[in-house]
Structures are given as C-alpha cells and as structure tokens.
C-alpha cells in the first residue's frame, strides 16, 4: 500500500490517471443516480394524484365525480365535477383544503391566475361558483398544472366514490404500461454506457501499470501484494469520484426538474433517489472500478512475463449477440402473454444482454477490421492503426464501446419513434377538427341553446346488433345527416331518411349507450343504405326516422365552431352540461402532441447523454492509450515522426472500430426496436411499424462523436516531448 501511495505522490502520469478515474466515476455515479431516480419522479406524480383514481372505487359512495379533460389556449385542464350523494364528512387528500359543496370551486394556483386574466365567457364560466380555495402542491401533478374541482348539486354521468383521496397511486398502467416499459428501456440502455465509462476509467494507463506491477512480481511481490497495490491506486480516484458524483447528483436532479413531461415540469424533490439507492451506488461504483482494474491484472498476477503479450479474441464472441437476441425475443413473447411487475423483466434482461454482447463482440470485429487494413495499407498511419487494432483489439475497442452503445440506442429509438407516433390513441379523427362534441350527455340542452348562438347538433350514440348475447355490433350515431355532417367526418348527405354505413349491419336491434335508461329500437326490414367514408370509431349514421321511439333522445351534443367562438362554445358546453366528457379536436391533438413531444424530448435527451457518455469514454480511452504509449511515441517523435502522422493513426484507431461495430450495432438496434414496437403495439392494441432511412443516422452521428473524441487525444499527443522516450 505504501508503494502504491508513493507512486501516486510522485508520478505525474499516475496522478493524471487518478484524476481521470475520479472524473469518469463522478460522471457515471451522478448519471446512474439520476437514471435510478427518474422512475421516482413518475411515482411522486402518481402519489400526488392518486386521489384522482376514483373510477370503480366504490359502487355506492358518498360522492359522485365526473372526471374530464379540458383545454384552453393549448394547455390541458384536469376537471373534476363533484356532488355530494349523502351528508357527512367526505375524506379529501392532502393539498385539497375541503370538499367543495354545490356552488363552490377549488382551482389550482396556475388555473386561478389564468381565470383571473381571461374573460369569464371564455374560461371562468366553465367553473361556475365561488372559488373557495386553491389546491396545494400535494394534490398537483406538476407546479403549473391546471386543475379544477367544481361542486354541484348533482353530477350527471358521474362515478360514485368514497372521497377525493386514495387510489392506486401507480403510474405502472398509465398509457397501457407503455411509459413504464419505455422508462425501463431508457434505464437499461443508459446504464450500460455508464458502466462502460467506469470500466474505461478503471483501465486508464493500464499498460504502464501492468509493466510496473509485472516488474514488482518478478522482483518477488506476491499476487496479493500486487492486487492490493492496484486496489489502493484505483480506489483513491474511484472513491473521490463516487463522493463527487453523489454531490453532483443533487444539482443534476434540479436541472431534470425543469424538463417538461405530460405538459409540465416537476417539483425539485421528485427526483430524489432513496438513501439506500444512493449508498448502494456510491459503494458499488468504486467496487466495480477496483474489480475491473484487478480483473485486468490477471495476466500480470498469473504470468508476469506475459505483461507485454497481446490478448487474442475468439470469434465465438459473436454468437453472444445471437444468444442475447434470443433472450430478448423470448422476453417479448413472454411479455405479450404475462402481466404484473415481472412482465417486462425478461425483455429488459435481454435488452441489457444485447448491449453487453455488442460490447463483448466488438473486439472480434475490431480485429477483423485491423487485419483488413494491415493487408491493404499504403500509409504509415493506416499501418500503425491496423496493427494496433489487430494486435490488441480488446484495448483498441474499449474506447469505442460507449459510442457503439449510443448508436445501438439511437437506432433502436429511431426505429420505435415513428411507430409510437402511430400508436398514440388520442389521434382520433372521428370528428371534424373544428367541432366540439360532448359525450355522456344526460342533461336538458335548453340551457346550452340559450348560452350560445352556435348551431347545436343533438345525437344519440349506440350499437346495432342481432340482439343476441355477446353480440355488441358496430358503434353508430342516430341523427339527422344534414346536422351530423357538420361535426362528423366522412358523411355526404342526400335527401330522405337512410343509413349511412361503410358496411352492411348484421343485425337490426339498436341500443343506446346511455349508462342509465338505455333506449332500444328496431330498424325497419327495408331501408336505404348510403356510403359512409368515416375512418374513426363510428361505423354508421342512422336517420332517427328509421328508429321509431328514439326521437328526442340525446346522449351527445356536437357544436361546429369558428376560431372566434371556440372558447365561448367550449365554456358554454362545460358550464351548462356539467360532468360531460368533451371530445375536442384541440384536446385530442394536445394530448397526442404532448405525449409525442415528451417521447421525442426524452429520446433526444437520452441519446444526447448516451452520445456524450460514449464520447467521453472514447476520449478518455484514447487519451489513456496515448499516455500508455508515451515512451514509444516520444521515440518516434525524436526520430522525426511528424505528430500529425501519429494523430492520423490515433484517429484511425478510434474511428475504424467504431465504423465497423456501429454498423452491427445499428442493425441490432433496428431489430430490437422492432421487437419493442411489436410489444408496444400489443399493449396499445394498434399501430403501424414504419421503418425510415433515419434509423441509419446514428451511425453517422457515432462517427462524428468518435472523431471529436479522437481529436481529444491531440493535446495529449502534443504534450509528448521527443525526450520522453527516456522517461519512465
């Protein structure tokens, strides 16, 4: 231990290596802590909004709640219309001051401010009553969330609930479990480059250390002494780096809290990792670094005379990619059938295995590339690089591993993104974009007609079936074609009563969808069928004259709007038909766009982190390899070798394996991306799997990152003096 500490005190290169180890571990620790805390952020939001999970809580509860989404000026509003069913205390969650009685309103601070600054007919009238308080942060998903709880005498179409509290508080099933899957995928693919960075840091200046330790072994040092020396030398940098990483994770989590998700940013405390996780990461990181350094010494410990020998890599490593792919696809098959917490475990294990297999197989491809160039070189820089790649492919590939994983991740993400876009279920184009449609309407619409001069289209929704058990039949609208066509896409009307449908109905029994008091009617034996070109949820439109007994029944109200009256109509609908569910083109687009924006932003952030990690890993390795060969480079420079030639060789050393292995990584990323897309499609129930040329873009980006990283060894190279050949 004394020798190791003495080396650290006196040897400048060992000091530089220790600083680099500390930096590498610091970055890796802070990133891993951040990644592990990311699901905590989603969980913190889920915990705060657990009170909203009132559906199905109770068959007969003291309150009724209608949960709806609304929008204003491109912002989503969460709306809860509530009414008391019986007297007595109503339990409320933290952040909700009291249960709002009829005529009372609770608003979130951001919504209260928005209401104050907006004409009442555009927004405020949507929340009839007196504001009796604001919702606290404990009841909000994010700081600027727009939330309203409006008290009524009675809520039509509401669900019974025990109170405004409780709920599962889990984001596990949000969006059909897809977000849960994506956060885990992000975790796996970003943890791997972190580990690669740690390993690269641990192997910095390994060649020099191996020579010194081999000399000590030959001088009589025992394997245990050599291992202790290595552990001490590495531990100094690793422990310092780990502590700094934990400290750095704090400001890092505050920056993360500024990144919007689902329409809003986060509370700073959302991304706090639990103390147990912090301790585990802070301890495990240095242990891993020390273990990697000791593992790298096996040859010196076992065969000190072999310190200068180069390691051979076996081609069977390539089979590991096929094996890992097998595990991954088995996981996909399992996840499609299974459910619960373990649903995605095998998929994620397979994903991690594919990433690690790429790292393990990389040296094989690196050696092949090296041999190819050794056979075809014409310039000394190509010869130097080719020989380095074929002679010590493990060391040559080490720096490229992070970039390769970044390319793998990038290709996977770019394969998935277009497919995910098609899977966003809120991109429903049933209704015209300028139409606002209220569903679950059980109200008298007279007050609505009085509140707005816009045309009101009343409709009744339901199904047409044979009437047999388990035959639900297609979903249809009953309404006058000339009226319905103002709000519904794909309807071209002609004179006279008819059924507009894209295909013939099997049955003739109409049943309305009303939760209470459903009406039934029978279609006549003969009726005229006309084409319907709608491509949304609705399969047909039936003129009410063909269904005697349903006249005057209303379950949906549609209003065609203009840019000028849109907010006013929206407000009138919500204000006069409390508790209805509004289907609004703006709202649909807003939700879908927000989700896609979130996914794209998360992808860009994730890929940027992966690319930066890969670049740092490559730069650290490239710089380390220059430090390791300082004497040889010094001798070459002394003998007149231009630094630019050595620079070319070093750049080729970094670039060539990246080029070869990233193509393989890109292929693996596409295959894995398609697998995950298949799984996501299974979860959501629909969607396409388009493949665009952009999936190849990560290869080009990987090359650029590798080039930038390779340029980082320039200053180290220029720092070498021709007199360094004599230094040791």
């Amino acid at each position, binding site marked *: 231990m004394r020798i190791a500490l003495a080396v650290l005190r006196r040897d400048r290169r060992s000091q530089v290596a220790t600083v680099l180890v500390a930096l590498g571990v610091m970055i890796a620790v802070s990133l891993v802590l951040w990644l592990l805390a990311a699901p905590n952020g989603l969980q913190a939001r889920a915990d705060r909004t657990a009170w909203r999970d009132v559906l199905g809580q109770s068959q007969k509860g003291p309150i009724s709640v209608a949960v709806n989404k609304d929008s204003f000026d491109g912002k989503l509003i969460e709306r809860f219309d509530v009414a008391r069913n019986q007297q007595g205390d109503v339990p409320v969650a933290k952040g909700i001051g009291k249960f709002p009685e009829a005529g009372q309103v609770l608003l979130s601070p951001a919504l209260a401010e928005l209401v104050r600054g907006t004409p009442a007919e555009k927004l405020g009238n949507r929340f009839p009553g007196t504001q009796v308080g604001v919702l606290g942060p404990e009841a909000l998903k994010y700081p600027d969330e727009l939330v309203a709880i409006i008290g009524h005498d009675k809520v039509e179409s509401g669900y019974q609930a025990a109170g405004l509290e409780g709920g599962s508080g889990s984001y596990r099933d949000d969006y059909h479990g897809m977000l849960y899957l994506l956060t885990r995928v992000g975790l796996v693919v970003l943890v791997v480059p972190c580990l690669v960075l740690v390993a690269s840091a641990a192997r910095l200046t390994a060649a020099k250390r191996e020579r010194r330790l081999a000399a000590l072994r030959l001088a009589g040092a025992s394997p245990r002494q050599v291992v202790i020396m290595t552990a001490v030398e590495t531990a100094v940098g690793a422990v310092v780096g780990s502590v700094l990483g934990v400290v750095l994770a704090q400001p890092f989590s505050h920056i993360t809290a500024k990144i919007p998700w689902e329409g809003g940013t986060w509370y700073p405390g959302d991304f706090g990792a639990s103390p147990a996780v912090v301790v585990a990461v802070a301890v495990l990181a240095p242990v891993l670094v020390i273990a990697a350094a000791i593992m790298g010494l096996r040859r010196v410990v076992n065969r000190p005379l072999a310190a200068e020998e180069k390691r051979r890599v076996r081609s069977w490593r390539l089979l590991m990619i096929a094996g890992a792919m097998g595990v991954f696809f088995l996981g996909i098959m399992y996840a499609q059938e299974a459910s619960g917490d373990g649903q995605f475990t095998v998929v994620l294990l397979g994903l991690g295995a594919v990433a690690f297999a790429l790292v393990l197989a990389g040296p094989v491809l690196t050696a092949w590339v090296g041999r190819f160039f050794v056979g075809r070189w014409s310039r000394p820089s190509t010869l130097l690089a080719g020989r380095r790649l074929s002679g010590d492919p493990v060391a040559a590939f080490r720096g490229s591993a992070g970039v390769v994983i970044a390319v793998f991740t990038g290709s996977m993400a770019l394969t998935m993104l277009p497919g995910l876009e098609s899977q966003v279920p809120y991109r429903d184009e049933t209704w015209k974009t300028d139409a606002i449609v209220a569903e679950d309407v059980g109200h008298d619409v007279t007050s609505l007609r009085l509140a707005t001069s816009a045309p009101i289209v009343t409709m009744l929704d339901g199904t047409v079936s044979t009437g047999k058990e388990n035959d639900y039949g297609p979903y249809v609208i009953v309404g006058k074609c000339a009226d319905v066509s103002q709000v519904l896409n794909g309807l071209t009307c002609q004179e006279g009563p008819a059924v507009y449908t894209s295909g013939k109905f099997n049955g003739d029994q109409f049943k309305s969808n009303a939760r209470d008091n459903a009406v039934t009617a029978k279609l006549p034996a003969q009726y005229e069928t006309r084409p319907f070109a709608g491509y949304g949820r609705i399969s047909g439109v039936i003129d009410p004259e063909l269904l005697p007994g349903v006249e005057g029944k209303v379950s949906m109200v549609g209003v065609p709007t203009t840019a000028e009256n849109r907010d006013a109509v929206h407000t009138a609908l919500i204000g006069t038909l409390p508790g209805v569910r509004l289907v609004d083109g703006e709202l649909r687009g807003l939700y879908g766009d927000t989700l896609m924006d979130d996914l794209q932003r998360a992808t860009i952030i994730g890929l940027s982190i992966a690319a930066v990690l890969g670049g740092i890993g490559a730069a650290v390795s490239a710089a380390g390899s220059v430090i390791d060969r300082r004497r040889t480079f010094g001798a070459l*420079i002394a003998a*007149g070798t231009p630094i630019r030639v050595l620079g070319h060789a070093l750049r080729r050393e970094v670039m060539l394996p990246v080029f070869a292995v990233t193509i393989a990584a890109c292929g693996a990323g596409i295959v894995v991306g398609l697998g995950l897309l298949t799984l996501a499609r299974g979860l959501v129930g629909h969607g396409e799997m388009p493949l665009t040329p952009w999936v190849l873009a990560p290869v080009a980006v990987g090359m650029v990152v590798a080039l930038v990283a390779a340029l980082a060894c320039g200053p180290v190279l220029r720092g070498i003096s021709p007199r360094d050949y*004599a230094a040791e």
Partner: protein
Amino acid sequence: MNSVLAARGLVKTYGDVHALAGVDIDIKAGDVLAVVGPSGSGKTTLLHVLSGILRADSGDVFLDGRAIGELNETGRSELRRTAFGFVFQSGMLVAELTAEENAALPMLLAGRSREESLGAARLWLARLGLQTLEKRRPAELSGGQAQRVAIARALAHRPRVIFADEPTGALDTRTGQEMMSALLQAAEETNAAVVIVTHDKAIADRALRVVEIQDGRIAPKVIEEAVSA
C-alpha cells in the same frame, strides 16, 4: 575532410543548471564518437541538441555547414527523419508492428512506397542476421534482437549521422558487444557517422574518439583515436 556535423558554442540551461556550457565538437563522415561522463553531466542533452531534438540557448549545430537551429520544429523533424538515425535504449520499437515494419517505418514516414520501404528493411534485417525474424513483433524478440531491429531502422534510410543513446543499457555485456559490432559495421558500410552516449567504458572503447562531458563542458582530457575493436 569537412565535418558532417559540427557544434559551436552550445549552451543549454535548465533553470540554474548549465547542462551545456559552451560545447564545440566536429564529427566527420564515418566517425564514431563516444560521449561519456557521469550521470547529469549533460551528455544526453548534448545528443538531443546535436540531433535537433532540443534547441540550444546559444550556439548552433551545423549539418553539412547548414545551421539546424534556424529550422522550425517541422524542419528539424524532417531532418531527424531523413538525415539522422536513432538507436535508443531497449530499442523503443513500436510494439504492434513487426520487425520489418519497424525497420521500414522511417522510410514510410519519409513518403517512400510500401514495397521500397519493406524491401530495404528486409535487406538490412538480413544483413544483421534477422532474416528469419522479420515477421515477429518486438515482444517475440530477445533484447539483442530488438536492438538489431532498431539498428536496421536507424540505418535503412541511409542517414548521415546515427545517434545512439545508451544503446546497450538494457543488454548484458556479451550481447551489448555484439550489438555494437553490428552497429559499427553497418555504419561503416554506409559511411554514416555515429554518436554514442554511454556510461559503459567497454562500449566507449569501441569508438574511434571519446569525449567526456563534465558539468556541461568537454573535459580537458579528450581521448582521441581510442582503441577500436
């Protein structure tokens, strides 16, 4: 006969230390000069200044009458690559390259073709008795064999002057003497001058001339025409 390499009034200081304190020296073609002296006397600094690795603070070095101190780093690099050859302690071969590629490296760096460079390298390796080892890597060679490859590398591009810095420092006495014989014979064949820095008297004795450096100066007692092998 004119000097191939001449030094006039070389001064080089590191802080308060006078590594060279006014050195004059003349080296003719085919000359073999040993520079000896105690550790820290300035002999390696002299080799570095003579070969253009270092610039003198004052004074200059002349190759065929041309001052190399006037050249910039690129020019001095080119000079070292084309006019000089180097043999270092432990060979300092490039670990990844084979023996023939190591020997061919200076010619490749000078822009000569792959075939020409490797051909000349193989020729020199054969002259030095290494014809069966040309595909081996440095780790697969003995210390003496590696130094012979270094000699082939230093001579293959037919330099005017060969600089050898403790060339036998890592070898046993017998191997060291064999290596010196190979170096001197090869240099004689190309009429190259040889400047050897050594603290080994037995090696210095193989030179045609010996200069001793003490405190950055050539010692008053200069052993001319030393016993050659």
